């Protein structure tokens, strides 16, 4: 019997030992580090922003402006102006969480670590992202955004007017100042900068160019915007080589978003009839823009659809078109200067896409059309419609600002969210905002015909 008692005693003792338990790092996921360097965040921020703008945003802009035709799945719905709020959840999440939050963390870290060059780069990226978002959605959160780690789960919205007149130019001015700092004690971007490889001058030019774009874009409200934009010319991107764009790679895990869409969703879209017909016979870019890859998953090497194609965030081509349109539309129009800038824009486009200058026959045809045109703006925008293909949502912005190109509305474009069947003037806010942040949501019932502030 005594033996039993001894055993029992040992067991009782073991029990009383169990008063508290510590588990060390058992609950820490070794795959999720608690902190990483800015240089590990920057490539992710750049790639994610480029992906969101060069992927879903390019696609929706192309579908609404008939550069693409949706022939299957949700792209077919979107092409017919049936865009549900739930369709936007992905784009919104990709922008706010995957790209801009990472960029915002870089801004915070750069301030803590006294790294103005990182701060400048991150602010240019932030301005590009918020700019694309507001052009598509109107009012969007910025000032109150990215506060989840401090307990802010219902960010308020900044009006587009605030964003355009204050926040975006503020970000860019600040970025230019920080990028111009002589020293950046906390480090400067180098090979981790997938866009410019740490070349601060190019970042500064990109910042000035974005400032120009977001000044010019207000022209529908503010006629002075054209003149203001022109004053920015000296500092902007001055050649194709300086384009603010992200090059993807040809490895299977690093290809460009349009190429990947063509591979994993072949047959969802094809090139739009209007776009195909917009090319004249002399246009050597046609073979590089119009191909079957979206429809068939395979085909000719399109400029923007090869695996390593760049995603353009701001280009010399666009800068030149802004210059041309500003000259044409400013209070004291200068048609000649407009034509010069237009020719340069078109030439830059040919150079970028085909590697050669504008073919003479094309130039002659353009000259003739310019001369004959009753509304020279239409000629200009028709050119831009081709030249800025696959460059963010520039083409849709132009349509909303100018009414060109003169697209017909698709048949069957009437639905509960787009009751007049015309080309949508905005994207609906994502469903997650309506359900999770309703109090702050500026438009409670989706209506694709409600214009954004600069389009009013």
């Amino acid at each position, binding site marked *: 019997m005594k033996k039993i008692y001894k055993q029992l005693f040992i067991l009782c003792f073991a029990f009383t030992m169990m008063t508290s338990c510590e588990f060390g790092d058992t609950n*820490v996921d070794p*795959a999720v580090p608690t902190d990483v360097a800015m240089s590990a965040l920057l490539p992710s921020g750049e790639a994610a922003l480029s992906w969101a703008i060069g992927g879903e945003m390019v696609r929706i802009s192309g579908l609404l402006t008939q550069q693409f035709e949706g022939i299957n799945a949700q792209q077919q719905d979107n092409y017919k102006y049936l865009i549900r709020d739930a369709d936007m959840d992905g784009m919104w999440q990709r922008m706010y969480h995957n790209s801009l939050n990472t960029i915002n963390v870089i801004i915070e870290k750069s301030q803590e670590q006294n790294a103005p060059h990182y701060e400048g780069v991150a602010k240019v990226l932030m301005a590009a992202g918020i700019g694309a978002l507001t052009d598509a959605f109107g009012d969007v959160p910025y000032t109150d955004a990215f506060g989840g780690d401090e307990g802010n789960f219902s*960010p308020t919205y900044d009006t587009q007017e605030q964003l355009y007149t204050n926040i975006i130019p503020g970000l860019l001015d600040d970025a230019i100042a920080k990028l111009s700092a002589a020293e950046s004690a906390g480090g400067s971007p180098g090979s981790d900068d997938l866009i410019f490889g740490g070349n601060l001058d190019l970042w500064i030019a990109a910042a000035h160019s974005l400032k120009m774009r977001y000044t010019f874009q207000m022209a529908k409200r503010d006629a002075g915007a054209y003149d203001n934009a022109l004053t920015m010319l000296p500092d902007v991107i001055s050649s194709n080589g300086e384009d603010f764009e992200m090059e993807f790679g040809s490895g299977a895990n690093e290809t460009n978003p349009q190429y990947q869409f063509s591979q994993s969703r072949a047959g969802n879209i094809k090139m739009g009839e209007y776009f195909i017909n917009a090319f004249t016979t002399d246009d050597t870019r046609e073979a590089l823009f119009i191909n079957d890859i979206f429809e068939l998953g395979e085909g000719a090497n399109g400029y923007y659809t090869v695996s390593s194609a760049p995603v353009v965030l701001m280009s010399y081509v666009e800068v030149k078109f802004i210059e041309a349109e500003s000259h044409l539309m400013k209070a004291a129009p200068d048609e000649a200067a407009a034509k010069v800038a237009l020719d340069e824009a078109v030439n830059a486009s040919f150079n970028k896409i085909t590697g050669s200058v504008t073919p003479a026959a094309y130039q002659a045809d353009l000259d003739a059309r310019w001369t004959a045109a009753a509304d020279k703006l239409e000629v200009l925008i028709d050119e831009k419609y081709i030249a800025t293909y696959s460059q963010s949502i520039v083409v849709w912005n132009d349509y909303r600002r100018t009414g060109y190109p003169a697209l017909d509305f698709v048949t069957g474009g009437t639905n509960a969210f787009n009751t007049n069947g015309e080309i949508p003037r905005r994207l609906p806010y994502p469903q997650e905002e309506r359900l999770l942040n309703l109090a702050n949501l500026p438009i409670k019932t989706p209506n694709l015909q409600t214009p954004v502030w600069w389009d009013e």
Partner: protein
Amino acid sequence: MKKILLLCFAVVLSIPVAWAQERVVSGKVTSEEDGSTLPGVNVLVKGTTTGTITDFDGNYKITVPDEAELLFSFIGFLTEEVPVSGRSVIDVSLTTDITQLSEVVVTAAGIEANKRELGYSIQNVNADEVKNSGENNFVAALSGKVAGVQVTSSGGAPGAAAQIRIRGNKSVQGSNGPLFVVDGIPIDNSTFNTFDSPEDDVSSLGSGGVTNSNRAIDINPEDVASLTVLKGPAATVLYGIRAANGAVVITTKKGSRNSAAKVKYSFGYSIDKVNKLPDLQTEYAQGSVQGGVPTFQAAMTGSTQSQSWGPLISSLRYANESSVWDPNGLIVTASDPRATNRVPNSYNNAEDFFENGSNMTHDLSVSGGTEKTSYFFSVGRLDQTGIMPNSDFARTSFRATTSAELFTNFTATLSANYIQSGGKRVQNGSNTSGVMLGLLRTSPSFDNSAGYIFEDGSQRAYRGGSIYDNPYFTVNKNFTTDEVNRIIGYTQLSYDAAPWLNVTYRLGVDTYGDDRIFRNDVNSSSVPVGQVINMTIRSKDINSDFLMTFKRQFSEKFDFNATVGHNYYKKDIHINRIDGQGLASPGFFNIASATAVNVSEGVTRRELYGLFGTVTLNYDNQFFLNLSGRNDWSSTLPEENNSFFYPAASVGWDFTQTFGVSSSFFSYGKLRASWGQVGNDAPFAVTNNGFVQSRVRDGWTTPQGVIFPALGINAFNPNSLLGNNELKAETTTTIEFGTDLQFFDGRIGLDLTYFNATTTDAILNITIPSASGWQQRAVNSAELTNKGIEAALTASIIDNNAFTYDVALNFTRIRNKVEKLAEGIPFITIDPFGTQRIAEGEPFGIFFGSRFLRDENGQMVINPDDGMPFEDSTQGIVGDPNPDFQIGFRNTFSYKGITLSFLLDIREGGDVYNGTKGVLNNFGVGEETLDRNERVIFPGVLGEVGTDGSITPTATPNNIEVVKGGTDGGTNYYQNYGFVNLTELTIEDGSWIRMRDVSLNYNLPSSALSKLPFSAVSVGLTARNLFLITDYTGIDPETNLTGDSSNVIGYDYFNNPNTKSYGVNVNLTF
């Protein structure tokens, strides 16, 4: 030392007092029925607290006064009173107590109990019922057999997972699956997706990828001796948090001592067929309406047309011209100059695709024992081929359980179970390589089976190349293989230190490696450059239990037993995944040949300590009281909140005894009530923030994207989940009332249970606005209730020597409600497409989506422009997947050696999301679209569109006649609401009546056996899902897209279909 001991045990136990001895009596206790010895019989000196129990061979020895009377009592037998009368050897044989329900059940922590003594609901499933169900996955075998249990399979693919829920869903995002316990050792029942990286398992919820297994499939049903389902916390408290959702307790077969070796061989063979497919139209060709005319467009016309809104196939002709797309020739219009008079064939590609699957099982076991040992060895082999070409599953299982009494009253048991399982898996669901996706969308004018690959390696599919994979391509080229090697083993040491004290220690391990190769061949639609993923899952569960059980009969009327125990549990899962894209050549799935290789690693780990105790008091076999409690310490909670205690209490009252009711009409009645709580901890690593390796993409480019390291550099971004270091354990409190009644001397039995379970502080990852920078946050806030009625009725309707007819009926009715989510969070989406939600004030998992705009009278509002009903610009609740009730109705007829048994399974209510139908109708292949040319006026009132775009219903009834399918060039109703159609139109009632299983068994009579070398022979026929009656228009509504890998229910989006089967089995015992 004694003092310390007293401190330890004074609370629970009184130390036995030495007794004056006058005579030693010994003897053997046997069963009168078959003469077998009875171990564990209580032997008590009447009127005292002196007693002992019989040993394993039924022997006892006790010291008693000369004039004493001995009471022999044992569960299920009548108590015997024997005067000693000066004898020193008293052998007793006990008579079975037929009037008592004497079911022995295994409760938590492996404690055996008489069901009569329990104050809570518990239900046994007969091992034969599991076996005769014809299911290879014993989780699926539980369908319809237990009240309060709902089982859903993920389809009929070989090795497909089955999801089991006991008393509904209690956790919002955590697992709602019960704990599986085999011989006291909790085993792993995970389902891992092979789709993508670990983080994508969460976001994609397994909506694509391949059909996977839940790991309980590794248990060979043939090894199961008995199975008990523990439902509420009063039953499961000793298992702690892991049994927060109930427990399925399995006891495997063992040998018995003093018995000659018994060799048993069983063979089973069955054929599987697809049991239900969606109805497809076979009249209209691929194409679309062009300028008001349905026009044939197909790969052979150079089109990638996905839809079948073309002309009647009968209006087309084969041409005198060949086409690589159709061996019968090019298809042209009848007026085409090349046209012959041959009308093109039409195909029901879905019906043509499926084959007969088969299941073959061989099981051999040897069992027996010597005086001090017992053993059981088994080997089992299952070979299954699927109803889809090139799919299979196999399982080989070895089990050895031996037990030896090493010295008096000290028994060691060793058990090891080695399993190898795995097979070829088919792609599934929302995935352009999914079998059903390409198969069902195929136009009836295209024959998938006429070749799937051209000589240049490109695909022959109805849309041309590799847009949607030809289903034959995907099963032959894009299959996944998996191989699981698993060992479940334990050592148990049990010491009957005294007649009143048993000490048991049990150490169990369940560990496996699951090696998978996931393939997307070159030219597959998902990854045209080709992809191979090598994925290795290593899982390890270690479980240690120490138990002390005290048993005491204080007096003739007063029994006491108690158990205290300690538990340690550790789980480690390590997933290594190597994703190689860009294959060197088709069919060469070598990771080293891939041009881009990415590696990811996922770890989940958890540790848990528990201390528990339970006390059961039995007064006069009439009143039963059980008090239990457990404290857990969990590693997944913040240190300051990681300890939590939960108690349970139950009472049972056999009122027929108390009131002396002993009529043969009303032979037994017990009332029971229980209250209990059970805690649950948090998922792994949600208490802190961090950064994850970056993976850039969108919903249109999975599974690719930019996967860092890429572009020559590695990159990270903030995790999408914000951690919470203030989390605490969630708690489920259950109140249960019930009664067990028997009539006509036990021939009719009824168990009724009502329960009400409330989960508070449920941990959930709530979605937060992305504009906050993060997407999810872990909080303790939700409150869910599950209320239900469970009834189990058994009746022996006819019972004479030759013929018996028994019925057993299980009824389950559960109502659940999400009482509260989190502040400012009206809902949480749990499915991949945002259609299924947990919403405040609603039942679990309601369907939410788009619907028609209706006026205040519920009339549809019609678009004056095109005559189509308007869609409501806001979405809402459109369905509820929770069934109203479920019934399992077992009928068993026995005549001499022949037994016929069948189980009818009835489910009333429970909506199913038929996303498949939405797409098929949009594509013009759904049978409904045969009315495409009908002129209809949609019932409703016209709407008026304001200048601001608002829609106001008018009083004017709609009078616009339209062609429903828009074949005149007008709007197509089936396409007007988008790709997956209006959610309202895709929600269907999933009620069913099905013949779950039928078995006919014949046991050879002993007269016939005498001429054979066998001691028992039985042969049987089985059938599963013999018929299914349902209004649901898709595949079997029981299937569920995500199987057991998520809490999604009632979800049909190009799921693989379910099966029915017919089989034979032979059992020989030597």
